[in-house]
């Protein structure tokens, strides 16, 4: 048996002041889940493709006299395949185990956690909660990625359970690729802007769907003179995000409870940069255009709209589409599939932008040495296989 490459331990994560503590067994549990996730994707998932190509696809062709024509045809055929059933059942269950583990960890210390959050948030003018903001259907219909309570449920007054649990658990699903503060996405945006658009100095930044602020914080750090407005509809997430940013010594972010479909509090052309991170796939056919129209309204000419998102399905082989679409149906991400088959240029056109201005770019974030150690001597060139590449698209408003 070859020696497996060791995976990073959850313990290497940066423990900011509102990060839930973990005892010995809680760390071991998160490490087990990290290993299980990597095992499922590296060792078991390739077998799903073998099952498709070796059994399911030939059977489909035999009975139908043609190849599958859509990801949905593949999915329906694969649902009868034993290997796919086992992989799916394991993957779904692993997600549920993650949530149970992190919620148990957070709930046992929730009283002290809430106290710490309240202390950091006390009388802050950089946290604006608005009880009139309702949870929209696109996140209220099912609990996104099987996270009980989603981003917004409150079990008691001033609760932050769902947010703290999200902060703790991200690592187990991503095996450290997001970095020690799970902020790789925001870091990648900052790095790309400083390297490729060094003359762009946004003074006002809007981050939409910020959840726990893990991508707003690195943006605020990349542009310390800028005012960052980070919005979300989810109260517990905003409370936690604000305290988390303070704990990290970041003071130029205002966290605001708001729905990006309508932001009457912000003037036309009042932001230089508008970002979202892994957000659009959690919207809907009705909310996404409204949000994009709002972005168009508040963005200054010469300003940048940038979305970190998974790649669109177009041009991707059908098996890839099918396997990426798993989350749509089985990980409570119902808008994932419909969003990834949109014609984005047409969508941007419809919302007042010029779709022809749209660009696609792969943003490379730094490998977090805190998690993966220093690069070995003589290891020149790019960090293939270690540096995560973030798919991003957007446009400069003319």
């Amino acid at each position, binding site marked *: 048996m070859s020696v497996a490459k060791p995976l990073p331990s959850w313990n290497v994560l940066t423990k900011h002041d509102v990060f839930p503590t973990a005892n010995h067994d809680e760390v*071991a549990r998160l490490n087990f*889940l990290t290993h299980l996730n990597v095992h499922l994707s590296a060792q078991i998932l390739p077998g799903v493709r073998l099952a498709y190509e070796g059994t399911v696809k030939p059977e489909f062709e035999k009975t139908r006299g043609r190849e599958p024509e859509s990801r949905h045809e593949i999915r329906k055929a694969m649902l009868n395949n034993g290997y*796919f*059933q086992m992989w799916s*059942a394991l993957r779904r269950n692993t997600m549920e185990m993650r949530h149970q583990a992190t919620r148990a960890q957070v709930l046992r210390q929730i009283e002290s956690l809430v106290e710490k959050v309240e202390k950091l948030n006390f009388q802050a003018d950089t946290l604006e909660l608005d009880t009139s903001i309702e949870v929209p259907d696109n996140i209220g219909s099912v*609990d996104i990625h099987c996270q*009980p309570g989603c981003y917004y449920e409150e079990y*008691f007054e001033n609760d932050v359970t769902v947010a703290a649990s999200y902060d703790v658990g991200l690592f187990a699903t991503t095996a450290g690729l997001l970095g020690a503060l799970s902020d790789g996405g925001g870091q990648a945006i900052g790095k790309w802007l400083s390297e490729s658009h060094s003359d762009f100095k946004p003074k006002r930044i809007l981050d939409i769907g910020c959840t726990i602020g893990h991508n707003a914080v690195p943006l605020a750090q990349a542009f310390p003179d800028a005012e960052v407005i980070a919005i979300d509809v989810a109260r517990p997430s905003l409370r936690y995000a604000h305290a988390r940013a303070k704990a990290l010594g970041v003071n130029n972010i205002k966290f605001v409870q708001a729905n990006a479909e309508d932001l009457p509090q912000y003037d036309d052309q009042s932001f230089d940069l508008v970002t979202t991170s892994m957000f659009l796939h959690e919207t809907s056919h009705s909310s996404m255009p409204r949000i994009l129209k709002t972005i168009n309204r508040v963005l200054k000419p010469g300003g940048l709209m940038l979305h970190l998102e998974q790649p669109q399905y177009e041009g991707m082989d059908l098996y890839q589409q099918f396997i990426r679409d798993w989350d749509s149906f089985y990980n*409570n991400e119902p808008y994932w599939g419909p969003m990834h088959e949109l014609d984005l240029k047409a969508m941007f056109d419809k919302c007042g932008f010029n779709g022809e201005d749209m660009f696609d770019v792969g943003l490379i974030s730094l490998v977090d040495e805190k998690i993966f150690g220093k690069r070995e001597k003589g290891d020149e060139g790019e960090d293939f296989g270690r540096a995560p590449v973030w798919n991003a698209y957007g446009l400069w408003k003319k």
Partner: protein
Amino acid sequence: MTDTLDINKLDLAGTKAKGKRPYFLESKQTEQVMSIVMSLAMELSVTRERLASVECLLEDRGLLDREQLNSYQPDKSEAERRSADTQEFLARILRIMQQDKEEMQRNDPTMEEVQEKLTKS
């Protein structure tokens, strides 16, 4: 002071995400057993880590030599005790297979059959 008296933390930790849960295996119960087995696998992994930590701590204090632990050979009586333990462990976890075998050997009646017999006047 945060008021959390009204919440049941044990229930809340394991609460279900909103949205109907898909089942993939032919039998829902089989998938539920898989879920239980995977949780047990996690707890076993946690226990192994805990034991490894105990070994580290003992070694740091000079109370354990891990080389010695790895090459430890139980004497005859200890080996016999362990064999008995292992047999008991296996019998315990594989009880359902033992009972299925006994039933095949005995051809047990169903409760309905016995009920019918017992209520014959």
